[in-house]
């Protein structure tokens, strides 16, 4: 410390201290927006260019239309395939739903983290003690999020326009920007929804949970609307449906922007209104400060883990069941389409399966991809216990680190296995309800078949947690998101098998359309076990560290 001579010290004045929250939040939001804009732009570019080079002839493109053009199953999952015999049509079909959902997830995570997350961490208390009010702080943070949105739009837009300019692709500037607008619409709406749920909920996790539930419901409704069930009007009842209704690159309908803008503006306005009315750290939806003692689970660290994970595991179980029922119940129509398409039918007959089973194999892959997030969620929660310092309370008592982590991983493994089993059962119930003619045994096996890939994610995550704890969340999320992108892209484009093999889901057989590959499953279990063991050994030998 240097001594300061009396009289020479002048108080440092910071540039407009009243906007410090806005500036800090904007910097983080913009950084994240640019990063995801790159992902969005490059994903779009890859889809457009791959299509342009892989499907050069009219015949090849017609075949694609024949395969996917009127398949209600695929339409239910990723949206209707309109004019996919053209580069723009195909690009829109492959990108729109996937990127809109990714953008929505980005929006709700970013908004809840930069508002409620910062508040939970107590950082606003420091800033609010300065020269600003609570409402102004909320306005600042929420406004700053739009800088991130702008960054996302600009980055995605620049790449899309550039790719569209290529003669092979041929998408005009206006069309490219309208398309970018549609992609980013999910982020815009859920940025606002996240800001609102951050005001309603009492913790960041809870806030993200509310917003995710809305996104899930929105996706489920859109699925029903797109499954060829005559309920297409339902598209107007869901945010993801509105985005689809914008129909970029095919037959644009700008009217769909009305509900999108309305939701964004109204949710944002309510969020700001509520922010000025509640206390710092408090929530609008009643969060009882007292609670009846329920000690039956709290017999030890494992019981505690169950208790803490219970809300999110129940939510997962509910979603998997709902998803399974839904996909099962459209299995018949999905299968009929496959059967009525001579090319597809020939392929599947050779594999010895009926149309519904072929369709369900694809449906269960989609559930498998989502179950990957059970693994990431559990790993993030495990690291969260450590980084927040709550784990210290257990480890300073007579409890070995190895036992604690092993139990945490066991719980996560059980949750994943349970999700697989539920997926199989629910899909069967859904399929049986429409008499799709699918047998019980194979479908339950197909449910169990989706378990190993997520266990691999868990094993890799456990290893990272042991060796580089701070990277637990980023690495495990990256593994799952990358694998999902590979699976989605790999289905249509010609991708090197090295890339395909890098997906944890790639060795999973598409049961029930083919029998489960038990050899591959055993290998995956082995990989998961080795990862977990390395993680356990490393965790026992390292420092317990906070954020």
């Amino acid at each position, binding site marked *: 410390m240097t001594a300061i001579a009396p009289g020479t010290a002048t108080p440092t004045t910071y540039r407009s201290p009243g906007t410090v929250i806005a500036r800090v939040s904007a910097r983080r939001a913009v950084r994240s927006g640019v990063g995801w804009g790159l992902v969005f732009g490059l994903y779009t570019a890859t889809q457009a260019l791959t299509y342009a080079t892989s499907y050069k002839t009219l015949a090849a493109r017609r075949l694609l239309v024949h395969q996917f053009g009127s398949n209600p199953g695929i339409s239910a999952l990723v949206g209707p395939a309109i004019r996919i015999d053209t580069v723009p049509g195909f690009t829109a079909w492959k990108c729109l739903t996937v990127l809109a959902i990714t953008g929505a997830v980005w929006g709700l995570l970013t908004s809840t983290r930069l508002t409620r997350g910062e508040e939970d961490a107590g950082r606003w208390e420091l800033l609010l003690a300065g020269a600003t009010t609570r409402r102004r702080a909320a306005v600042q943070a929420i406004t700053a999020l739009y800088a991130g949105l702008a960054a996302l739009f600009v980055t995605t837009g620049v790449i899309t326009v550039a790719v569209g300019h290529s003669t092979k692709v041929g998408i005009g500037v206006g069309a490219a920007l309208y398309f970018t607008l549609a992609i980013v619409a999910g982020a815009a709406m859920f940025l606002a929804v996240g800001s609102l749920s951050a005001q309603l909920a009492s913790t960041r996790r809870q806030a993200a949970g509310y917003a995710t539930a809305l996104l899930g419901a929105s996706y489920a409704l859109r699925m029903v609307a797109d499954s060829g069930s005559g309920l297409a009007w339902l598209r107007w009842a869901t945010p993801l449906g509105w985005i689809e209704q914008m129909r970029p690159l095919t037959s644009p309908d700008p009217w769909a922007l009305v509900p999108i803008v309305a939701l964004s503006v109204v949710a944002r306005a309510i969020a700001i209104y509520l922010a000025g009315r509640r206390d710092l750290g408090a929530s609008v939806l009643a969060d009882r400060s007292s*609670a009846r*003692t329920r000690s039956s689970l709290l017999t*030890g660290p494992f019981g505690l883990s169950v208790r803490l994970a219970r809300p999110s595991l129940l939510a997962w179980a509910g979603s998997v069941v709902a998803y399974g029922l839904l996909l099962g119940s459209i299995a018949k129509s999905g299968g009929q389409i496959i059967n009525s398409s001579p090319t597809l039918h020939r392929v599947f007959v050779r594999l010895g399966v009926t149309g519904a089973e072929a369709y369900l194999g694809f449906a269960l892959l989609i559930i498998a991809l989502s179950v990957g997030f059970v693994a990431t969620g559990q790993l993030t929660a495990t690291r969260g216990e450590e980084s927040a310092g709550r784990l210290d309370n257990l480890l300073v008592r*007579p409890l070995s680190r190895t036992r604690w982590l092993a139990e945490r991983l066991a719980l996560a493994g059980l949750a994943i296995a349970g999700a697989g089993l539920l997926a199989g059962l629910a899909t069967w119930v859904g399929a049986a309800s429409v008499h799709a003619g699918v047998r019980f045994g194979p479908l339950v096996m197909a449910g169990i078949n989706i378990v190993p890939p997520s266990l691999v994610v868990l094993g890799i995550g456990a290893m990272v947690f042991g060796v580089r704890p701070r990277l637990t969340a980023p690495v495990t999320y990256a593994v799952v998101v990358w694998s999902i992108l590979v699976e989605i892209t790999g289905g249509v484009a010609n991708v090197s098998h090295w890339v395909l093999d890098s997906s944890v889901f790639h060795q999973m057989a598409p049961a029930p359309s083919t029998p489960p590959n038990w050899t591959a499953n055993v290998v995956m279990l082995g990989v998961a076990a080795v990862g977990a063991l390395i993680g356990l050994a490393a965790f026992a030998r390292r420092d317990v560290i906070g954020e």
Partner: protein
Amino acid sequence: MATPALKTIGLTKDFESTRALKDLDLEVAPGEVVGCLGPNGAGKTTLIRLVLGLLRPTRGRAEVFGLDSQSDTVAAHRRLAYVAGETSLWPTLNGEETLLLLGRVHGSVDTAYRDVLVERFELDLTKRVRALSKGNRQKLSLVAALMTRADLLVLDEPTSGLDPLMEQAFRACVAESRDRGQSIFLSSHILSEVEVLCDRIGILRAGTLVEMGTLSEMRHLSALTVEATFTGAVPDLAGVPGVSMVVVHGSSVRCQVQGSVEPLLAVLAGAGVSQMLSREPSLEELFLAHYGAADTSTPER
């Protein structure tokens, strides 16, 4: 000699580029209350986390009742209880659930004493941790540690966030534990707390123990302050053995005496003293003597 409750041998910890703790040797005898003073960043928390086995030492080791903190962690933890300065508990559990869980993980709880503690600290156990203030969370953590009646209490700035009344209650609890024969290792930067509670005090500076002993030993080793007012002329004290820092102010003088006071008394006796005051240095003065008023930062390695 009985196995020490806590012992560190050449304990060293490096964090990337800084050395947080250097070759620390420390011992807490059974039944002893030892305090550890030091400003923020001196290494108090690092020391405690090493003792608890939460951090791995770069070199050296720590033992709790002869049990190694790294290889015998679980056995060592059966003998101790710990309170952190910043307690982070599970926000969705209520107070009773928290105490139940932590008690079950520890293995044994004096339930009657727990009820006494809850009353003494005026805790509302039905409230969720999320709804508790920082001070109340701290109290919950204190009760969770004290209710185990562990042989060694390791307390890292345990009273942060407590109001003065609760701090009194805390001191009473520590005295009680000491009277029961429990050993206590307490880190703090509140001097009065350490002064009142501790048998021996260590001063930690930049990862090294710069002083260790009882308060009277430490006082004995350091200088006595003497102030005297004279009826006549002020004598020259500069040459008197053991005397330093002489300040003359009108007809009075202030100086420091190291070692025997006899030579100084001999001079004063012959000079006509009208008033004389002598006092031992306070812990604060001892503490500041080790740090200097401005130099409290941790030097880089």
